[in-house]
């Protein structure tokens, strides 16, 4: 497999401008001759569908939800970065670019990241024009705040609901296009497969979740904006329906899957309370500004937290990392919590939790100040746990919440299958091995509003996709495969539920491929996952029929793909024999616990190629060259 990044030559600063000048255009009257299928209507999908429709393309968009507004982009709390430098504190496109490359631990493609930083400013302008009610100061101008991994205030926000407001902005643009009949929006339809004809992506097969009908749709290009795969861990901060199916189906049809082992763990989530747990709730990281993290010094100390005296507490972050303390980077804090709990000193009913204590801050600043800063978070915590965090320390534990890996794309956002483009969290390109806070929203909207409208036109103008017929046997074949898979799932009649298998898979992945990984564990997991998959196809039970809404069947189809995909993730984690960003191999670390990269051997993208279920996929390599930033040890000391 050949991985051509197609990055324009010449100076980095001019690359996107030069690209836009060099591309071939399609005249406005001819755009309506091209049909685009957009799968997924979160930030990236909705913004792309709307923008392409405005240009004149015929667009059909698909979501498994009942509305585009339900996509999980809606849950992002913190904000969106942009290099506006409104605060006059030294920000610039270059600085945003540099921070993002460094934050990604030097495993992203320079030109993509630079383009992202460039268009970040247009995003804010566009969103304000749409009526997104960003926070403002008393002069009526936009307010900014600072976020992890940056020394400038460049984050725009709308209370604690920035993702919601940005998604509603993109959604309103999409609904405007739907009203004007420029976009046909298919709701409650899930993509089952992508259809390749003459080597190009020419359509998809979907299942109507209400009627069960399997149908084909043709297009001149297919755009996947189907999000990340954090639910491979079963418990994550993702929404319940988030899944890998669309990406994984594309992978099976020949799209390379890049860096699947880059999965991010968020340190401040509400801990698991029992086996009934269905998801983990994220609490803003800002809590660590005033809270102190600790566990009891002794394993046998089962006293309530308020009765444990100062000398019997281990403020382990302050002890191990005196300069950064409770504000140590996400990955370091997460691993330190795991170590304390693995040592048997964890708190909460399951033993997987650590205290986040505000007693000192309340004493120092008064309860009122803490209330102003974190009131809504404290309320949410009390609702879920039933304890008052003003009186009893909060309990937190890390959880999986974002995946940097995804389908491999070139500078045009095109995968290794011509015509199949991938946007947002579903692609791999901009965050390297670790994503900085407030950058996910930025990337999703950059891809949808400002990148794909250019690059897709160039694809059409150069490739000129030929006419195809819906009678093409590839459609029939893909439909038949989808039908057969469903039939197979319904006919096993075993004894275990899809959720049981999913939970089992999650346990394996979290144990051996979660916050910290090593060769022995990964090899063990590579034995366990295929066994579990085999049991799935022998012992699964699914009730109900295929011709109506069947939540059990939906879940089973998604779990079936997670069970295959998990192996790709494990292979990637095993073969990337270094630590970088969120991928932490215990064999490779500095004395202070920071990830130890191996730039000589691993300064590249690993893009995996499907070779059959259960077979080891082929690892292809795209070397990364850093001409504008110098590779350095990522240090926040």
């Amino acid at each position, binding site marked *: 497999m050949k991985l051509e990044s197609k990055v324009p030559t010449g100076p980095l600063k001019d690359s996107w401008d030069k690209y836009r000048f060099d591309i071939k255009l399609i005249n406005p009257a001819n755009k309506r001759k091209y049909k685009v299928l957009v799968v997924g209507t979160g930030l990236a999908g909705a913004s792309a569908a709307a923008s392409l429709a405005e240009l004149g393309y015929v667009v059909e968009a698909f979501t498994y939800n009942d509305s585009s507004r339900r996509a999980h982009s809606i849950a992002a709390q913190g904000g969106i970065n942009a290099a506006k430098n409104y605060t006059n504190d030294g920000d610039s496109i270059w600085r945003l670019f540099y921070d993002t490359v460094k934050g990604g631990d030097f495993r992203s493609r320079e030109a993509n990241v630079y383009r992202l930083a460039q268009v970040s400013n247009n995003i804010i302008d566009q969103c304000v*024009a749409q009526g997104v009610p960003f926070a*403002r100061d008393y002069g009526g101008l936009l307010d900014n705040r600072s976020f992890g991994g940056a020394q400038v205030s460049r984050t725009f926000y709308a209370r604690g609901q920035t993702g919601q407001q940005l998604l509603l902005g993109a959604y309103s643009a999409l609904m405007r296009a739907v009203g004007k009949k420029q976009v046909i929006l298919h709701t409650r339809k899930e993509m089952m497969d992508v259809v390749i004809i003459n080597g190009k992506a020419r359509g998809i097969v979907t299942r109507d979740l209400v009627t069960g009908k399997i149908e084909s749709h043709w297009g001149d290009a297919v755009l996947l904006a189907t999000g990340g795969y954090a639910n491979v861990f079963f418990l994550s901060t993702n929404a319940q329906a988030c899944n890998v199916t669309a990406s994984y189906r594309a992978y099976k049809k020949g799209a390379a899957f890049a860096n699947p082992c880059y999965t991010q763990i968020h340190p401040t989530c509400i801990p698991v309370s029992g086996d009934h747990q269905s998801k983990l709730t994220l609490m803003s990281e800002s809590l660590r500004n005033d809270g102190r993290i600790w566990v009891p010094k002794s394993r046998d100390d089962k006293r309530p937290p308020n009765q444990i005296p100062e000398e019997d507490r281990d403020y382990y972050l302050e002890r191990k990392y005196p300069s950064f303390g409770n504000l140590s980077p996400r990955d370091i804090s997460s691993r330190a919590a795991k170590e304390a709990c693995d040592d048997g000193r964890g708190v909460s009913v399951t033993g997987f939790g650590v205290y986040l204590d505000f007693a000192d801050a309340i004493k120092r600043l008064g309860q009122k100040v803490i209330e102003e800063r974190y009131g809504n978070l404290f309320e949410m915590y009390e609702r879920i746990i039933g304890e008052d965090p003003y009186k009893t320390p909060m309990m937190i534990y890390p959880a999986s919440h974002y995946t940097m890996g995804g389908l491999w794309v070139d500078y045009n956002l095109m995968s290794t299958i011509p015509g199949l483009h991938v946007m947002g969290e579903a692609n791999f390109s901009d965050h390297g091995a670790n994503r900085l806070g407030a950058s996910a929203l930025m990337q999703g909207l950059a891809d949808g509003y400002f990148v794909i409208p250019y690059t897709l036109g160039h694809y059409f103008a150069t490739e000129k996709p030929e006419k195809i017929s819906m009678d093409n046997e590839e459609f029939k074949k893909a439909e038949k495969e989808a039908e057969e898979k469903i039939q197979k799932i319904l006919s096993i009649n075993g004894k275990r539920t899809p959720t049981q298998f999913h939970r089992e898979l999650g346990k394996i992945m979290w144990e051996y491929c979660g916050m910290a990984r090593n060769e022995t564990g990964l090899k063990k997991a590579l034995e366990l996952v295929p066994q579990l998959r085999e049991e799935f196809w022998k012992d699964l039970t699914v009730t109900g029929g295929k011709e109506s809404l069947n939540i059990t069947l939906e879940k089973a189809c998604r779990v079936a793909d997670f069970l295959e995909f998990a192996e790709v993730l494990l292979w990637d984690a095993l073969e990337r024999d270094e630590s970088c960003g969120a991928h932490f191999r215990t064999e490779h670390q500095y004395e202070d616990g920071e990830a130890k990269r191996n730039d000589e051997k691993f300064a590249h993208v690993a893009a995996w190629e499907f070779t059959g279920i259960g077979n080891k996929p082929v690892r292809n390599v795209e070397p990364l060259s850093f001409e504008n930033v110098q590779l350095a040890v990522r240090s926040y000391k």
Partner: protein
Amino acid sequence: MKLTLYIWRQKSAGDKGFMELHNVDNVSEDMSFLEMLDVLNEKLLLEGQEQIAFDHDCREGICGACSLIINGTAHGPEKATTTCQLHMRKFKDGDTIYIEPFRSIAFPVIKDLVVDRSAFERIMSAGGFISVSTGNAQDANALPIPKADADLSMDAAQCIGCGACVASCPNGAAMLFVSAKVGQFAYLPQGQAERKERVLNMVRQMDAEGFGSCTNLYECEAVCPKQISVRFISKMNRDYLCSSFLENKK
């Protein structure tokens, strides 16, 4: 704790539904309401029965997918809380709970507790936007917006589109939902150009979908998980009235 549940079952839109009795035990107070239903669903599946369908997704109170009328109240007994954020510690051992879908003429049942809220989508596409295409928007700070207006706009914009307002309204009115969207743009300078057409188009679509009229009962505000205020309804009524008069003058 042990609970007695009566849950609405309905095979499809055309089917006549019924309340089905389920006894559940070992319910932990740490479970969310939906996790309690998950546990029941797992049990049903292992007994070879069909699982109860209900809408849900983010489970953190923001996507607006979850619904349910719990003991007669949309989203259950806790104020300003979606069903997914409601926890079982709000109930006690031995309780009987009635669980029904968000019923309304404009929200037909699809199956069990899942209803079709696509009427909201059509109202949105009738005018729930500012007509700006992607491209050369002016600099975001070129248009200062007084903080008070921006805050009011944000108060309205918080609506999650769950439809609790409709489900709890004896008239089946969607006024709170529509006024939240109309209000968000009415307070912003960007929204002024289309202000009149927007309110007329959205209200007309709302009527066409079969939603009822507002008679100031404020049930909507009482159950709204995002605490959207009914003042947006009066704001929308003023806008609607002015716009209709001006339209007739043309």
